[in-house]
C-alpha cells in the first residue's frame, strides 16, 4: 500500500519538474516548484508508514515549511518589480527542451537500472526519479536565460537530491540534515538578493544577463 504512495509521489516529482520546464511564466514556475517541494516533503511520511519519531516529524515539518512556503515567497519578493514575467529567449525552445527531457528521463532510468540500492529500498522508483529530477533541474538551469528561472532550476535539482536523501534518513544525523536544509535556504535567500540587485542595475533591459566584455572597475 505504502509503496504505491511512494511510487506515486516519485512520479509526481518528475511530472512536476517536466511541467516547470514547459511553463513560460515565472509565477507558474514558482507555484509548480512549491507543489513539487510539498510532494518531496511528504515522502518520509510514506516511507515510515506514518509512524514517525519526533525527529522525523520535525524534518518533515521544516522541509515543507521552508521549501514550499518560505522559498517561493522569497522568489516572488525578488521579482516583485519585474514588469514582464515571461521567459525571454530560452537557449532551446520549450518544445525541444521537452523532447530532450524525455531523453534525460530515459537516461536516468537506464543509469538507475544498473545500480542496486542495497537492501533498504521500499520502492524502486526513488533512485531513477530523483536522478531524473536532478537532470531536469540541470536542464532548466543551463537552457534558461533569466536569473530567476536558473534559481528554480537549481531548486528542482536540490529537490531531486532531497528525494534521494530522504530514503537514507537513518545514516544522516538530524543536525546535518538541518544544516543541509539551512544551507540551501540561505543560498536561495542570497540568490534572491542578488537577483533583486540585478533587477535594479539592469532595469532598462529585462533580467537576462548581458554578456559584456568583463572589465576591471573600482
Amino acid at each position, binding site marked *: 500500500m505504502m509503496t504505491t504512495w511512494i511510487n506515486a509521489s516519485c512520479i509526481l516529482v518528475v511530472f512536476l519538474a517536466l511541467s516547470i520546464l514547459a511553463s513560460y511564466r515565472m509565477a507558474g514556475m514558482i507555484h509548480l516548484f512549491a507543489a513539487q517541494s510539498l510532494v518531496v516533503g511528504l515522502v518520509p511520511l510514506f516511507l515510515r508508514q506514518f509512524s514517525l519519531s519526533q525527529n522525523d516529524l520535525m524534518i518533515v515539518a521544516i522541509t515543507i515549511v521552508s521549501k514550499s512556503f518560505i522559498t517561493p515567497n522569497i522568489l516572488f519578493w525578488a521579482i516583485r518589480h519585474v514588469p514582464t514575467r515571461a521567459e525571454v529567449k530560452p537557449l532551446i525552445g520549450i518544445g525541444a527542451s521537452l523532447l530532450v527531457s524525455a531523453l534525460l528521463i530515459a537516461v536516468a532510468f537506464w543509469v538507475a537500472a544498473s545500480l542496486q540500492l542495497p537492501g533498504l529500498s521500499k520502492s524502486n522508483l526513488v533512485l531513477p526519479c530523483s536522478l531524473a529530477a536532478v537532470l531536469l533541474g540541470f536542464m532548466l538551469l543551463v537552457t534558461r536565460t533569466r536569473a530567476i528561472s536558473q534559481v528554480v532550476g537549481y531548486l528542482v535539482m536540490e529537490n531531486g537530491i532531497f528525494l534521494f*536523501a530522504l530514503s537514507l534518513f537513518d545514516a544522516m544525523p538530524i543536525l*546535518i540534515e538541518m544544516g543541509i536544509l539551512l544551507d540551501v535556504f540561505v543560498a536561495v535567500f542570497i540568490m534572491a538578493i542578488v537577483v533583486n540587485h540585478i533587477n535594479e542595475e539592469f532595469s532598462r533591459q529585462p533580467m537576462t544577463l548581458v554578456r559584456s566584455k568583463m572589465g576591471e572597475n573600482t
Partner: protein
Amino acid sequence: MLFAIVAVPFFSGMLMFLPFSKPVRLWFVLGAAFAHLVFCGCFWRSMPCSEFNEFLTLDPLGLIVLSIISGVFCLIAVYAIGYYVHEQRSNRTFCACLLFLLASMTLVTLCNHLGLLWVALASTTLFAAPLISFHRCPESLEATWKYLLVCSVGVALALMGTFFLAFAGHEVQTLFLSDIINGKILLSGRWLKLAVIFMSVGYGCKMGLAPMHSWKPAAYGQATGMVAALMSSVVTLCSFLAFCRIGQICAKSGLSDFYSSLLFIMGGLSLVIAPVLILGEGGLKRVLAYSSVENMGILVLGLGFGGLGVFAALFHMVNNALSKAVMFLTAGSIAQKYGSTRVSHVRGVVHAYPVTGVFLLIGLFAGTGMFPFATFHSELMVINAAIISRHYGLAALFVASLSLMFIGMTRIIFEMSQGPATAPVLAKQENFWMNVAIALPVLALVILGLWMPAPLEIMLRKAAGLLTPGVV
C-alpha cells in the same frame, strides 16, 4: 577548544551588525583574527581531542590547512585597515561576511563527518558571494551570480556524491570519516566509484579546476584585492582538503588508481587550459585567476602521483596560499591607486610607487616558481614525483605549462611595472599597513624557500602519511 575556534569568528561576525564605526569594526576583525591565530598556535603545541560525538576532530592535515587559513586571514585583516583609509562605503556586511567566512572555513578543517564537511563547504560559497559584489556594479553582480550559481550547482553534485558514499556501506551506513578509514565498514565498489566521481566534480567546481573554472576569472577579476586573495589562497584550499579526504577514503578502499586517473584528467586539463586562456587577457586580476587555475591543477596532480607527490602537493598548498596572497594583495593596492588593474590604464608602477612596483615583480617571481621562493621547491618536487611515478607525459606537460604561464604573466606584469608612469587617480601614497601585509608573506616564502622548519616538515609528513599509508 575546537568549538571555540569556530565560535570566536562566528560570534564576532554577529557583533559586526552592531552600530560600530568603521575603524572599530576593522580593529575588531583584526582582534578576532589574532585570537584565531593564538588558538591555532595552541593546537600546534598539543593536538586537541575530538568534540561533539566525534563530529569535530583535528588531524595533521586539518591543522596545516587551518594554520594557513589563520595566517592568511590575519594578513587580510591587517591589509583591510590600510585599505579602508581610502574607502568611503560602510564595511558592515564586508566585515561580517569576512568573519563568517573564517568561521565556516575553520569548520571545514575540523570536520570528521562528510555531511558536515559539505555543509561547511557550501556555506563558504554563501559567505564569499556577498564579498565579491563589493563594488555593486553590473559586472560585479554578473560575477557574483556566476560564482554563486556555478559553485552552488557544483556543490549540489557533491552532496549527491556524499549520499552515494553513504549508500556504498554494505551493512552499516555511515559518513564518519574515521569509521570509513579505520575499516569499520565495507564499501561496495560501484557506489563508491559513483560517489568519488560526483564528489570530485562537485568539489572541483568549487576549487576552480579546468572544465569548471569559468567563474574564476570573473569572480577574482571583480572582487576587491583582499577578497580575491582570501578566495584564491584559502577558500580553494578548503575544497582541496575535501579532495584529500576523498583520497583518504580511496586509499583505504583500494581505489587509488581510479582516483588518480580522475585527478590526472582534471589537473592535466587545468594545466592545458590556463596558459592558453591567459594569453588573451588584459586585466591583472584575471591573469592571476588563471594562474590560480593552474596552481589548483598542480595540487591535484601532486595528489594523484601519490608518495612524494602528496608531500609535494601539501607543501605547494602552503606556498601557493602565500604567493597568491602576495599577488592579489598587490593587485588590490594597484587597483586602489589607479582605479583599475587593466594594462591599458596602469603603466610604470615601479616609478610612481617603488614599493608596490617591487612587490608586483616579487609576486610575479614567487607566483611562477622562481628561486629563492618556496614555490620553486614545491613545483620541483611535483615534477620529481611525476618522474618517480613514471608519468613522463604529465611531467612534460607540467614543465611546458609552467613556462607558458611564465611568459603570459611576465608579458602583462612587465608592461604594468615598466614604462612611463600613468598618473594615479585615487590614493596618492603608499600605505604602511598594506605594505606590511604584503611583505610578511614574501618573507615567509623566502624563508621557506631556503630552510624548512622542523615542526612544519614533521607535520607535513604526518599529513602525507594519512593519504598514502606506509609510504612516507
